[in-house]
Structure formats: structure tokens, C-alpha cells
């Protein structure tokens, strides 16, 4: 057996040990175990610990992955059974050893009666006992060691099995694709009406669901919808025109506040109509987009990112400051913001609001698509590909970048106004940097420049954590890790944008002077 092989496996083991220890330190082991238990149908009571098998399942998964990875990294094609299993065992042993040392340290400190929460806020005494499987320190550690070795060996076996059956898998895949391409799915795909029917089904669901969901789901889906709106807006800036803007929340804030200030009774006693105020919010955000864009859009890439981040922070600090307190009410925020009204009737129930958000989302999807496929969209595409070349071929890059920022800002203004109106409140803490980061994450994770990607991203990043409330405190951590991982593994996103093909079919440029009418 080569020593480099063992070294490699040991390295993999160390990585996984670090992962397990980190997860234990941030308390994720308990959360994950209770989630697993929930999946199996037994909800964990408040402040109670989940059952031990759930922890075994969770750690077993990590161990399987460890063994799998170690076995795959032996570098043989096809995998040799002996070396793969040895690699898995070594990786499992090393990982288990480190976890054992960790449990010994933590367990000893715990049994001496020290409350570690003073320094490591997630390490409550109960969670330590839980991590030790309720046993003594040494026994708990040894269980971890054994579990790690066994699961890693199983992972290695799994890797060997999948390697052996690769040929079989390839055959199945071939058969499946053949069937899809020749049998009725292919005919279905070619049929034009199927698209319309699918669209009809989606529309029907959109009409029917808000009535049947109940207010909890309406609230969550409303939030997702607003984030889809924001995502579509930012997608125009980041995805289409390729300008990285980190201060998107500035426009969101401007929209929310301009809407709030003209409709709320306090501080300006304006009480404008909802729709007028909505228009005001959109226009105000768009104008602010132009004003902010004029000086800074000559910058590129990372500089633009930081400058816009600065703008976002400036807006928030100004809203919060005593200096503008007479206008914005400072840190207190604006209350009693108006809901939608139509012909004198109020439409501010959660169902009506859901419909309003759905309408706004559909409208903005439509607009964004039209823009993308127009002359402007092509200008944006050329700018995002290579600005210098775009300029050289006669695209007024500056103008189109400002246009992108203005349109994106208008969407943010709409989103902000809806958000403020739905909550009937807006304050400076609604407009922190994290909003920008959330929107940017969903655009990037979904796939830059792709509208289905934005929707998918909004559902996974905003909807999923709302449903899995246990994961709420880990959401941003996962966002961060996800951004890094996506950039390394799949920089184009979950649902990448299909490049519009400009072949012979597209009309000559002069023929398309009109806008999207």
C-alpha cells in the first residue's frame, strides 16, 4: 500500500473531523438531529433533546460522505477494492480520533462543572451530554470513533459499488434519454399547447392557492414573492448588465420610505392614495438609481460593489440619524402605512395582498423578459460580456448601465413599497445590508441572468428557511458557504440562463427600433 494513499485519506479524515467539530461547536448537530427526527414524524419538544438515533443518522451521513470521498480520491480507475476500503477506514479512523479528542476535552471540562456557554454560546450542558450519547466522556468518544470508522467503511463500500455499477448506470441513462427523446414525452414537448396548458395550470394554482393556504402560508409566500420581485430587479443589474451592486437595499429603503411617508398619517399627514403612492415609490427609486448611477457607473467590478455598499449604508445611517428625524422619524420608524384600496374599498387582507404581490411578480417577469430580448437586453449582454469590446462596437455602455440601474431600482422601489404596506411599518432595521446580501445570494444561487433561477433561488433561500424554522439561525452561514461553493462548483447557478441565440433568425438591428410594446 502506498503511503501517499494513506496520507491523502488521513487528510480527508482531518477535513471531516474539522467539519464535525465545527458543527458541534455551533450547535448544528442538535438542530440537524431534531430535523431528522421531525422527518421521521416525531417532533421534538421545546428545549428537549432529540433521540440519540437521530444523531447517529446525522453523523453516519457525514461519515459515509467521508469514506466515499476518501475512496474516490485514491485515484484508481476503476477503483481497486482493497485500497478504497483501506482509504475509507483510515479516513474514518482519523476523523473519529479527532472527534474523540474533542469529546474528551469538552467532556472533561463539562464534568468539572464549567458552563462553556460563557465563551462558546452554543455549547450548553445538555448539548454536550447529547453529543456524548448520554454516556461518560470516554465511552461517548469511543462511540464516535466507532461510528466514524463504520460509516466511513460503509461509504467506501458504497463508492466501490457505485464504481462497479457505473457501466450499468450509463446504460440506464442511455435508455432513459432514448425513451424521453422518442416516445410520448418528446411529442409532448414539441406540442405547443402543452406550454399553454402548463401556464394555465400555474395561473390556476396562483389564483386558487392564496385562498386555501391560510394566512401563515400567505405571509411566507408573500415574503418570497417580494424577494422574487427584488431578485428580478437585481438580476437586471447584476445578471443582465453585469454590474455588481451591493447596495441594492438603498433603493428598497427609498421605495419603502417614500411610500410610507406619503401614506402614513404620521409625520407628514399626507394620506395619499395607495396607487399614487406606489407610483411615487417606484419613480423615486428609479430617480435615485439614476442619481446614484451617474457618478459611479464609470467604475467597474469590485469598486462599484464597494461604492454601492457604501451608498446603502449611508442611506440607512441617514434614515436613522437625528439629523433627518423630522422627515423620517429616525430609529422609531414609520407606522400605520396604508394598505391597498380600490374604488374606496380596502383590499388589505392577506389574501388580497398575496394577489397583489403575484400580480406584481407576473408583471415584472413579463417586463424583464421583454427587456432582455430587446435591443437594450442585447446591449446589456454585450456589456456584461466585455465592456471594452461593447464600447468599441458602438454600445453607449454608460447610458445602458444607468438604464439598468434605474430599472432595477424601480423594481426594488416597488418591492419596498409592497413590503412596507404589507407590514404597515417600516424602520431603519428593515433596510440593513443583509437584505442586499440575501437578494444577491438568491440571484447568484439561482443563476445570474435567469428568471426561473431567481424564482428558484427565492424559494430555496427565503422560503425554505421559513418552513424549516430550526434552520433559521444557520441561514446566513449557509448563504455564505453556498456563495463560495457555487462559485467553485457551479458559477452559473442552479438554473442557468439560456443564452439567447442570435443566429440568422433574429432580425437585423435597424429593424428593431421600437421598444417592448
Amino acid at each position, binding site marked *: 500500500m502506498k503511503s501517499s494513499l494513506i496520507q491523502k485519506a488521513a487528510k480527508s479524515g482531518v477535513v471531516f473531523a474539522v467539519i464535525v467539530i465545527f458543527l458541534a461547536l455551533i450547535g448544528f448537530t442538535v438542530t440537524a438531529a431534531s430535523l431528522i427526527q421531525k422527518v421521521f414524524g416525531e417532533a421534538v419538544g421545546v428545549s428537549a433533546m432529540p433521540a440519540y438515533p437521530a444523531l447517529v443518522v446525522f453523523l453516519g451521513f457525514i461519515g459515509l460522505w467521508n469514506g466515499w470521498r476518501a475512496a474516490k480520491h485514491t485515484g484508481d480507475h476503476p477503483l481497486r477494492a482493497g485500497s478504497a476500503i483501506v482509504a475509507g477506514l483510515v479516513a474514518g479512523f482519523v476523523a473519529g480520533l479527532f472527534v474523540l479528542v474533542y469529546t474528551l476535552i469538552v467532556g472533561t471540562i463539562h464534568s468539572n462543572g464549567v458552563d462553556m456557554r460563557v465563551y462558546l454560546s452554543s455549547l450548553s450542558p445538555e448539548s454536550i451530554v447529547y453529543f456524548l450519547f448520554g454516556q461518560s466522556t470516554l465511552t461517548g468518544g469511543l462511540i464516535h470513533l466507532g461510528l466514524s470508522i463504520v460509516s466511513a467503511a460503509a461509504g467506501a463500500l458504497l463508492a466501490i459499488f457505485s464504481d462497479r455499477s457505473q457501466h450499468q448506470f450509463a446504460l440506464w441513462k442511455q435508455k432513459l434519454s432514448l425513451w424521453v427523446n422518442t416516445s410520448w414525452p418528446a411529442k409532448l414537448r414539441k406540442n405547443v399547447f402543452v406550454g399553454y396548458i402548463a401556464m394555465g395550470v400555474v395561473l390556476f394554482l396562483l389564483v386558487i392557492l392564496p385562498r386555501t393556504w391560510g394566512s401563515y402560508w400567505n405571509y411566507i409566500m408573500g415574503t418570497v414573492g417580494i424577494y422574487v420581485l427584488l431578485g428580478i430587479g437585481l438580476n437586471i443589474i447584476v445578471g443582465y448588465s453585469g454590474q455588481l451592486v451591493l447596495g441594492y437595499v438603498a433603493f428598497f429603503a427609498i421605495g419603502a420610505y417614500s411610500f410610507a411617508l406619503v401614506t402614513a398619517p404620521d409625520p407628514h399627514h399626507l394620506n395619499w392614495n395607495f396607487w399614487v403612492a406606489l407610483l411615487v415609490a417606484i419613480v423615486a427609486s428609479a430617480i435615485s438609481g439614476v442619481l446614484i448611477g451617474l457618478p459611479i457607473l464609470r467604475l467597474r467590478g469590485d469598486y462599484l*460593489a464597494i461604492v454601492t455598499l457604501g451608498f446603502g449604508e449611508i442611506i440607512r445611517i441617514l434614515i436613522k440619524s437625528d439629523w433627518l428625524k423630522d422627515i423620517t422619524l429616525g430609529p422609531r420608524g414609520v407606522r400605520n402605512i396604508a394598505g391597498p384600496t380600490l374604488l374606496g374599498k380596502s383590499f388589505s387582507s392577506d389574501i388580497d395582498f398575496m394577489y397583489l404581490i403575484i400580480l406584481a411578480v407576473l408583471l415584472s417577469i413579463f417586463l424583464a423578459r421583454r427587456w432582455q430580448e430587446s435591443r437594450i437586453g442585447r446591449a446589456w449582454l454585450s456589456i456584461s460580456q466585455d465592456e471594452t469590446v461593447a464600447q468599441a462596437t458602438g454600445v453607449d455602455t454608460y447610458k445602458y448601465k444607468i438604464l439598468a440601474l434605474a430599472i432595477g431600482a424601480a423594481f426594488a422601489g416597488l418591492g419596498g413599497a409592497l413590503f412596507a404596506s404589507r407590514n404597515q411599518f417600516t424602520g431603519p432595521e428593515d433596510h440593513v445590508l443583509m437584505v442586499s*446580501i440575501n437578494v444577491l445570494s438568491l440571484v447568484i444561487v439561482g443563476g445570474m441572468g435567469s428568471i426561473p433561477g431567481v424564482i428558484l433561488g427565492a424559494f430555496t433561500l427565503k422560503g425554505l428557511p421559513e418552513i424549516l424554522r430550526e434552520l433559521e439561525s444557520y441561514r446566513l452561514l449557509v*448563504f455564505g458557504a453556498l456563495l463560495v461553493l457555487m462559485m467553485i462548483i457551479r458559477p452559473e447557478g442552479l438554473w442557468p440562463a439560456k443564452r439567447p441565440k442570435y443566429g440568422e433568425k433574429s432580425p437585423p438591428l435597424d429593424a428593431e427600433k421600437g421598444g417592448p410594446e
Partner: protein
Amino acid sequence: MAEVHQKRPIKMPQLNVKVIRLLATAVVLVLLIARIRNVAIESQYGADTWLRLSVSGLIVGGMYALIAIGYTLVYGILFMINFAHGEVMMIGSFGGYFVFEAFNAIPVTLKDGTQNSFLNAQPVIAILLAFLAGMGIAALTGYFLEKIAYRPLRGAPRLVPLISAIGASIFLQNAGQLLFGPQRRQYINPSVIDRGLGWQIPIGGTNVLLTYSGIFSLVLSAALMIGLFVLVQRTKLGRAMRAVAQDKRTAALMGINVDKIISQTFVISGALAGAAGVMWGIHNGLTNYFVGFLPGIKAFTAAVLGGIGNIPGAMVGGMFLGIVEAIGPAALGIDFQLKDVIAFSILILVLILRPSGILGEALTEEKV
């Protein structure tokens, strides 16, 4: 409203950018000077306030400078903004915090029989170890940051590593929150550099307190900056770093291991940020998971201010920004709440008016 834009394309007047920049700079400067004069005439602050503010600005500026050097070093080599650099500083700050906490918990019986903690009995060792721990853990973070988040992205389009850096920054910040909790933690200083102790400077009838902790931070940051300067200018590693910054390919042809040099650059910048983090704790007396965010952005401002990629520029920019930020609200007669707005405004103005920074560096179109 966007449709209006489409139908009547806006004609932008094509003025000379340089002329506009000069004019705008002049206008900004005149406005600023007029404002400062007005405020100075009706000033409510005496000389003691100005001295206190500028000294505290200088101390914070030293920390900004240390962090800014990290941005500049990395930018000089990889042409990317290491967005997670502020978080590296936060981790360094926690490193120092834990050393002080641990030493504070060890009781020692002094020669004269009194009980005291090890922290106060052996302050030199405690401070040394705190800085070593802070710098060490921050350097380690920098090393792994580069290895995990940036190295796989070498050669990717420039937006890609930036997004990865933003992700790493969010990750580290939230890891810090989950590990150490969201609360602010009181930094325990050894009693010799207690935040209440210092030299009393009599000026204009009142005494201005120059705290030992602040002066210590200032001296240490100056020493570290000199050390770095020597390292970059005089050692083999420094020469290799400069070579890689100039031209990676040629440097590789000359037998320099480019990846290794990049790693070492991250280690050095991480160590400097870690030192700044410990100083931040010693000077301001607290740390938490969010402590790196604002200094990170401000240090980036400082790096841009001095001309990014330019090490002396980062030092000057950091000091300058620290002082301007400290005396700015008083000089302009605005609320102290708006302190952060000043830093961001400087960043925006510099990038718009003079993107090459104060000390300047020939930035090509591609870089800005």
C-alpha cells in the same frame, strides 16, 4: 418609465472626464473649506477637544492602516478585493480576547503575599501571547481562506472571486456569531494598559488623557508597519512578493512558487489584521462577531485613498482616514452619529474624483 428612455435615447454630452473631475474636486474642496471655516468661527470646541479627537483618530488610523495593508497586498497580487479581510480581523480580536480571559482566570500569589491574576502579574507575557494568538489565528484564517475560497477560482472572471469573497465574509461573520454568541464581550486589559490610565496633557485649562492602551496600540502599529516595510523591501520573500505582483508568469519562470507566495501574502496580511483586531479590543474595550465589518470597509477606503496596491499609500491613507473620521463631525459641525457617513463619502468621492488615490498608482482602465 423605462420605455420613455428607449424612445428618446438620452444624449450624454461628451465632456472631457479630466476637466469634470478637476472642476468637481475644486467645488468639493471649496465647499468643505467654507463649511469648516464657518464652523471654526462659531466653534464650541476648545483646543483640548481637537487634540483628543486627533489623537484618538491617529490611534484608530493606525489600525485602519494595518488592515488596509492587507487589502493592498492582496490586491497588488490578485487584483481582487479580499472582502472577508474585516472578518479575519474579528477572528484575531477573539484570539486576543481568549488569551486575556484565560490569564485573568489563573490566580497567582505575588511575592508580597497578595493574590492577583496572572494577567496583572505578568502583563508583558500576557500581552505578547495575546498578540501572538490573535495574529496566529488570523494568519491561519487568512491561509485557509485563500486555500478554500480563492485558490480554486484563479483565472476565473473577476466577479467570481469577489462573490466568493463576499460569501466567505458572511460565513465567517455568522460562524463567529454562532460560536461566540451575539453579545458584546468586554475586553479585559492587563492593569498596566487599563483604558482609564494614561498621561494627562494639560491644554487650555483642561487635561487631555492620552491612554496608555491607545499609545501602546499606536506605537505597535507603527512598529509592525516598519517591520512589514522592511520585509517587503529587504527580504527574499518581499522581493518574491513584489515580483509576483508585477508579473505572475514571469515570476514563475524565474523559479518563484507563485501559489506559495500568494499563500504567504495572505498569511502576512492576516497576521497584520489580527494584530489590528487585538488592538481594537484593547483600545475600544469590546469585541463581538460584527466588530470587523466597519473597520474592514473603512480600511478598504483607506487602501483606495492611498492608492490600492501601494503599501505606503495604505499606511498614509489609514492614518488620514482615522483622523478625518475623528475630527470630521466636529469640523463640519454635524452629528457624531454621521461619523460613518464621512468615511463612506470619502470613499465615494475618492473613487469618483481620483481613483488612483492620494499617493497614486497608475491604474489602467482594466483595474478600476
